[in-house]
């Protein structure tokens, strides 16, 4: 089975699409997928923040393009990822730094450290960082 390990360390809307598009697409080819959310990447799974992620500065005009192209909202991709058994891990250390608790994240998120991710990525076929 193909195994895909992803690190999400940025918290913008574009970052969220990169992470969740690849993750759900990988899950749809029956790959085992794990995402490790760290630093600003934690925004992507934060219950409120992930519904309203910022566009990169100067790229706000793409908003209309997203609507016109009928791109699914991040919320939908997150619940899709959950439904398809994508393993989501929030980084404990950055949670402490940013003063975040597990119950502030969407359902299905586990908490772990660097070793947790490394153990998953050890035999991954594809490793990606966003």
């Amino acid at each position: 089975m193909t195994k895909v390990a992803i690190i999400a360390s940025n918290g913008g809307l574009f970052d969220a699409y990169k992470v969740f598009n690849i993750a759900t697409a990988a899950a749809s080819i029956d790959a085992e997928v794990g995402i490790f959310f760290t630093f600003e990447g934690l925004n992507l799974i934060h219950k409120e923040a992930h519904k309203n992620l910022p566009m990169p500065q100067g790229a706000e005009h793409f908003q209309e393009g997203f609507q016109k192209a009928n791109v699914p909202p991040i919320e939908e991709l997150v619940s899709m990822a959950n439904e398809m058994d994508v393993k989501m891990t929030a980084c404990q250390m950055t949670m402490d730094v940013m003063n975040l608790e597990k119950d502030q994240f969407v359902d299905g998120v586990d908490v772990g450290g660097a070793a947790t991710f490394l153990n998953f990525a050890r035999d991954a076929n594809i490793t990606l960082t966003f």
Partner: protein
Amino acid sequence: MQVTVNKVVDCKGLTCPMPIIRTKKEINDLEPGEVMEIQATDKESIADLKAWSESTGHEYIGSTQDGEIIKHYIRKVSKEEEKQEQKHEDVISLDELLQYIEGEEKVTVLDVREPAEYAFGHIPGAINIPLGELEKRFEELNKEEPIHVICRTGNRSDLAAQKLAGKGFSHVKNVIPGMNDWKGPTEKTE
């Protein structure tokens, strides 16, 4: 082109990665061997659904375009089908079949793939009876004539050849490997 399918999936208006996610979900409900039509408007969907099929081992049969709507046809392939051992001993190669077809005599070719696969390319004049319908339709065939049974890779045609032999057909040959490697003439259903 009118294509018979077991299920139609609506992905109109959806963008990447939703068409493949929905396809993945819906294919779980199909029986192995059944064919699904996926209707999409996303132009990327052609490359993506082909790649998805390759990754998952399902058969991407082809696509048609009807205005904005692209219709994709995918057949669910089971692992068993790929590994199955061929038992019908009387076989014929694609090259030999091509020689017969180019010759003077009339050659009966029985294509046991699904109608959608047949529609996207078959040997001119081939009769289409899907493997699953052979049991109730074998009487459409002439027992006295030599019959060349073909499918995509030689596995379904092997089962069909065994079945016909069991019904008293005495000149049944399995064409191997199958349409996947066929270099001779083909035609599409309009």
